[in-house]
């Protein structure tokens, strides 16, 4: 399938995906069945065996899954796999690396994870400590520990960022493809968290993990370029599922306002409630227009880092504003799990921190303005 987001072929496919998401997205084998729909190969260029459908088409699919299923964890986990692992593999990988991993990632056989963050190096990844030393035979020996690794507990392939030279230098970073089965690689227990239920988060310990020379992605010293590529794409698109979650919550809030009475009148008759729901609609519309303008730029090959950061900042801000209004529409009911308001609010809070904090996005946007 080589299609674009505006083709009738894609529209039919997306309808099928929506049907799958309503029925099967909460099943234990959802990752595999999502892949069977062709979801994971969607953004990969056709010359690499993907659908070549592009970023806009993939974002529409991620939005649809979240909207139909109401779950944030699965689309977030898939996004981490797609944007932070599969995407840099497709962009930087050699023919041998593509042959070893790309088909498996697209088919759902291999789950990918990006292991970059360290306990002492959050958004400042240039100061990370995990070290990779090249042996006399050319193979690499990795030692260090990673945290906040999305998909970590279930991943089959880790894209590990490590230091191959001393000092906080751009040339000191390199990226490595490390299979879960590599001796010396230990997966920590699931990190308990309040947001994104179902998306697994964990730690990864590397104790003298030896991998062959050809496991280096982008070449020695190319880690910064790999990181920048992954972040540019991930920041732009990781919040696509939030659009679907907001659309679903907006529909439910309208229904709630039209059916619940307070003081003898329906909530929908109160100007304050109407205004809140209108502001939710405004947030969703703004977020959606920002995301898809960005996605079309990316498909045209003109997405730069400031725009990517602006997209994430805009979407996470609108997500937070949306949830604040949503909470006020429900009042005390917002605290009941069945309304989903508290969960959505936790997801919105998390969106300010993953893939670079809002402060980091502001810094990148400011640099882009020449400040």
């Amino acid at each position, binding site marked *: 399938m080589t299609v674009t987001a505006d083709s009738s072929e894609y529209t039919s496919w997306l309808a099928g995906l929506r049907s799958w998401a309503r029925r099967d997205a909460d099943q234990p084998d959802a990752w595999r069945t999502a892949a069977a729909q062709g979801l994971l190969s969607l953004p990969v260029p056709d010359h690499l065996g993907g659908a070549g459908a592009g970023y806009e088409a993939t974002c529409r699919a991620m939005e649809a899954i979240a909207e139909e299923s109401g779950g944030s964890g699965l689309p977030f986990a898939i996004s981490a796999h797609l944007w932070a692992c599969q995407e840099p593999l497709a962009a930087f990988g050699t023919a041998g690396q593509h042959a070893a991993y790309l088909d498996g990632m697209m088919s759902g056989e291999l789950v990918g994870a990006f292991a970059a963050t360290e306990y002492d190096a959050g958004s400042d990844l240039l100061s990370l400590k995990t070290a990779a030393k090249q042996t006399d035979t050319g193979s690499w020996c990795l030692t260090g520990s990673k945290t906040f690794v999305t998909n970590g507990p279930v991943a089959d392939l880790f894209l590990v960022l490590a230091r191959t030279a001393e000092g*906080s*230098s*751009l040339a000191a970073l390199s990226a490595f493809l490390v299979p879960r089965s590599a001796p010396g690689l230990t997966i920590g227990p699931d990190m308990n968290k309040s947001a994104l239920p179902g998306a697994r988060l964990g730690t990864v310990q590397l104790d003298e993990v030896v991998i062959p020379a050809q496991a280096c992605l*982008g070449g020695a*010293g190319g880690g910064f*370029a790999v990181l*920048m590529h992954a972040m540019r794409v991930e920041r732009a698109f990781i919040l696509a599922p939030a659009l679907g979650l907001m659309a679903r919550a907006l529909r439910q809030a309208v229904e709630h306002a039209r059916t619940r009475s307070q003081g003898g009148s329906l909530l929908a008759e109160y100007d304050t409630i109407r205004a809140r729901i209108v502001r939710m609609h405004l947030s969703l519309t703004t977020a959606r227009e920002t995301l898809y303008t960005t996605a079309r730029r990316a498909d045209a*090959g003109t997405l*730069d880092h400031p725009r990517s950061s602006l997209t994430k900042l805009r979407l996470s801000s609108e997500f937070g504003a949306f949830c604040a209004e949503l909470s006020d529409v429900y009042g005390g009911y917002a605290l009941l799990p069945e309304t989903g308001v508290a969960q959505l609010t936790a997801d919105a809070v998390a969106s300010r921190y993953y893939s670079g904090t809002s402060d980091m996005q502001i810094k990148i946007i400011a*640099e882009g303005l020449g400040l």
Partner: protein
Amino acid sequence: MTEQDFVLTTVQDAVQDVAPGVELTDDMPLIAAGIIDSLSLLKVVSRLEHDLGVRIRDTEILPRNFETIGAIRAFLATKAR
């Protein structure tokens, strides 16, 4: 301003926060010496793309292409305009 001067000026502007007052020369190591940090590199890339109308791919943001002013000029010379 010639393109030669433009590259020098662009890099000089971008590194002001990290290395204020440093007079750059063609063969001064920018990355190894920490004169260019991650954000200033992105700023250089963005400015070159915008003002020279070139496309610089992520896969090209490699130390060897940005290590010195001379390397940046040589890299730009390979780009189609």
